[in-house]
C-alpha cells in the first residue's frame, strides 16, 4: 500500500507574524519557515503506518518555491521514502494545488492521500476536500484516529460537539487534525539519510496545470488592537450594557 503526503512550507508557528508595509501580504524575508504543523502530523501518521507494516511506501509532495525542498527533507528525515517537489514562484492557491496533486495522484497511484486539515498561514482548509472532489474519491477530514483494514478506512473525525466515526472506501483523501498523533523528533542518523533520499523536481507545466491565482487578495491588515476592558460595578450594569451598548441580548 502506498501513501502520498502533501506538505506545505509555512511561517514557523513560533514566529510573530508581521504584515508587509504595503498591505499586500505577510512579511516572509528572513522569517523562519517550517513544515505546516498539521502536515507534520500527516507525515507522522503515514510513517507509523509504514513502521506497522500496513504501508510499503510513503511519498512526500511539496508545491511552492524552491526552498520547499527543505520541507521535503524534513518529511524524509521523519521517515518518508522519497519526495516530489513542484516548484513555482506563483501564489499557489488551494484549487491549483489540488489540481496538481490530482495529476500526481494519477501518476503515482497511491491508495491514500494524506494532508493536514489546513495550513496555518492562510487557514484555507480546502485543498484536501477539493482534491477528493476532483478525484471523485472518498474523503475523511479532521482525523483524530485512522484504522485501515480490508481496503477500507475507519476514520474518527473531530466535528463540532464531538467525534464522528465513518467507514470509507479506499482510495481516499484524508486530512489530519491536531490530536491524531504527536510527531516525532527526527533522529540525527535519519536527518543524514534524508539528504541522500531522492527528490524529483517538476514544474506546474510538467503537470499540465496553470497555477495562476483565481482569487485576488485585496488587502492584508493587522487585526485591530484590542481595547482595554472596563470593570462593571454589578450584574445589573452588566446586563444593561450587554443589552444597550453591545446589543447582544
Amino acid at each position, binding site marked *: 500500500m502506498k501513501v502520498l503526503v502533501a506538505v506545505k512550507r509555512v511561517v514557523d508557528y513560533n514566529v510573530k507574524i508581521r504584515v508587509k508595509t504595503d498591505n499586500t501580504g505577510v512579511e516572509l524575508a528572513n522569517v523562519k519557515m517550517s513544515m505546516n504543523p498539521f502536515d507534520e502530523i500527516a507525515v507522522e501518521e503515514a510513517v507509523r503506518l509504514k513502521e506497522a507494516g500496513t504501508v510499503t511506501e510513503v511519498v512526500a509532495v511539496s508545491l511552492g518555491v524552491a526552498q520547499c525542498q527543505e520541507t521535503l527533507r524534513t518529511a524524509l528525515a521523519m521517515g518518508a521514502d522519497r519526495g516530489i517537489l513542484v516548484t513555482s514562484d506563483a501564489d499557489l492557491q488551494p484549487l491549483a494545488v489540488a489540481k496538481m496533486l490530482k495529476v500526481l495522484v494519477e501518476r503515482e497511484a497511491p491508495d491514500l492521500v494524506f494532508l493536514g486539515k489546513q495550513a496555518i498561514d492562510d487557514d484555507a482548509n480546502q485543498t484536501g476536500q477539493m482534491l477528493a472532489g476532483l478525484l471523485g474519491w472518498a474523503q475523511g477530514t479532521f482525523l483524530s484516529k485512522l484504522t485501515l483494514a480490508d481496503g477500507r478506512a475507519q476514520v474518527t473525525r473531530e466535528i463540532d460537539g464531538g467525534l464522528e466515526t465513518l467507514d470509507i472506501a479506499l482510495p481516499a483523501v484524508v486530512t489530519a487534525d491536531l490530536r491524531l498523533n504527536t510527531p516525532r523528533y527526527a533522529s*540525527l542518523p535519519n536527518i543524514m539519510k534524508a539528504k541522500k533520499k531522492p527528490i524529483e523536481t517538476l514544474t506546474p507545466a510538467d503537470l499540465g496545470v496553470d497555477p495562476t491565482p483565481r482569487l485576488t487578495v485585496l488587502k492584508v491588515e493587522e487585526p485591530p488592537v484590542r481595547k482595554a476592558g472596563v470593570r462593571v460595578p454589578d450584574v445589573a450594569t452588566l446586563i444593561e450594557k450587554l443589552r444597550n451598548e453591545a446589543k447582544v441580548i
Partner: protein
Amino acid sequence: MASYRAPLRDMRYVLYTLMGGEELSSLPGYEEFTPDLIDPVLEEAAKLCEGVLHPLNRPGDEAGCVFENGVVRTPSGFPEAYATFREGGWTALSCDPAYGGQGVPHMVATLVEEMICSANLSFGMVPGLSYGAYVALHEFGTEDLKAAYLPALVDGTWTGTMCLTEPQCGTDLGLVRTRAVPQEDGSYRLTGTKIFISAGEHDLAENIVHLVLARLPDAPKGVKGISLFLVPKFLPDAQGRPGPRNGVSCGAIEHKMGIKASPTCVMNFDDATGWLVGEPHKGLRAMFSMMNAERLSVGVQGLGLAEAAYQGAVAYARERGQGRSLAGTKNPDKAADAIIVHPDVRRMLLIQRATVEGCRALALWTARHLDLSTHHPDPVAREESADFVALMTPVVKALMTDMGFTSTNLGVQVFGGHGYIREHGMEQYVRDARIAQIYEGTNGIQALDLVGRKLGAHAGRYLRRFFHPVGAYIEAHGEEERLAPFVTPLAKAFVRLQQATAQVARAGLRDPEEAAAVASDYLRLFGLTALGFLWARMAETALEHQGDDADGFHAAKLATARFYMDKMLPETGALFSVIMAGGASIGALDEAAF
C-alpha cells in the same frame, strides 16, 4: 518560567557569514556537511532542546537527585528525556563514524552544545562527560578496549565519567592516592575514593564507564606517577552486555549550589577490576586529551546560560511596567512604561547581548580551528590550527564562564525581586553558571595555563596564531573610515595586549610569581581583545549587509558592536594598568596578617 528559543538566526550568521561554515564540506571527511544538512541538524536540535530538555530544567532544579541505598534517582522526566536524546542519535554527534558516531563537525556540535546548556545544563552533564571519556578512550585505548566500550558510549546506552578528584587532591593531581594493582590476566584491581564525580551513578543508562586516575605500585611520586584506567560499573559478559557488578559504588551525592539535577557522586573503588588506558605513568597526558575537550565545552556552558538569562531578561524588560521613560512617556495607555525604556536596564541587556553574541563567535572561531586541526589536508595548516586551539582553550574556558556568570547575574538584576525568587528560573541560571568557573580547572588555573604553558610555548609560536591575524586585520582595515569606530578601539586594546604580553613574559622569566600574580588579569585582557577583534569583524559584515536587512538583524549587530567598543572593551585599559603594576602588592601582606 523563562522560555527558551534557540537563537538559530544568530547561530547561522556566526557559522556561515562570520566563520565560513559553508566551506566545511571542502574538508576531507566532512564532504556531507553542506548547509542543507547542517541547517536541519540545528533545527532538530533546537526543537529537542526547546520541547524536551528546557521544560525539565526548573522542575529538575527543584527536585534534585535522590540517593538511597547506593542508588541515584535523577529527577522525574530525566530518564525519558535521556532516552529520547539517545534514540535521536545526539550522544553520537561528533563521534567517529567507525564506532557508530555521526562525525558532525565541531563547529556544528558546538552550537548544539550551546543549545543543550541553555535548555538544561544539568541534563547536558551526562552526555558531556560521556564525550570526554570517549575522547580519551578513542585516543589512548587499546583496540580491544575501544571495541568493547566505544560503541555503547557513542550510542549512549552506556555513559562515561572522569574520576580525577580525591578528598586530598583537587587541582594538584600529583596527590592522587587511589591504587591500581596489576593482575596476572593483564587487568588491574583499583582501590580508593574519588569525589565530585559528575554522573558517577544514575538511572539513565544500563552501564557507566569510569575513567580513573590511579597509581601503580612502582609509580614515581607526583604527576609523573599517575596512570589512567577504565573501570566499568558492570563488567561486560562474553556478549559484551553488562554482566557482574564491579567493585565500584556510589557512597553519597553532594548537595550543591547549582546543577542540582546532575548527580555529583562520591565513588568508592574496592578492588574494582579495571584496564590501563595509555601507557603506565602517563595518565596525565591521556587525561588532558579529555580535559581539553571538556574545557572548551565548559566555556560553552557559560555562553549557553548567558543566552538563556538574556532571553528571560529581555522578555521581562519588555512586559514589566515600572516608572516612566525619562525622555517622556512612551506608553500613555498603560500605567507605566516597560522597564526596557530605562537606560540602566538597557545597559544590562546590552552587556548580556554583547556577551552572548561575542562569546558565540569566539566559541565558533575556536571550533573552526578544531575542525581544521583534524581535517585539513595540509599538515602545516593542521598544526597551525592545533596551536590556535591550544592557545585559546584556557581563554574560552575562563573568559566565557566568567562572563557567563556576570550575564546570568544581570538577568536576575533586570528582574529585580522577581529574579531573586525561584519562580521565574533566573536565579537558577546564576547558581548553575557558578560551577563552570570552577570545574575542569578553576579559572585561576586556566590563567596559569595561558601564561605559564601557552605564551612561551615553542618560542611564542602559539601566540602568533592569534597575534598575526588580529594584527593583519588592523593593518588592512585601519584606514577605513566606516570601520574606524570599531578598528580604532580594537587597535588600542591590541597594543595594550602586546605590551602586557611582553611585560608578563619578561617578569615571568625573572620571577614566575610575578607572572602568576597577574595571570587572571592577563587572560581577561586577552579575551576582551579577542572579542574586540570579533566584534570589529561582525561590524564589518553588518556594514556589508546594510542594504539587505529586512529584519534589522545587521543593524542590531552594528549597534551591539558599538556598545561593545564603547562600554566593554575599555576595561582593557584598567586591566593593562593592573598588569603593569605587577605582583608586588599581592606578595606584600604577611600571611599571618590575613
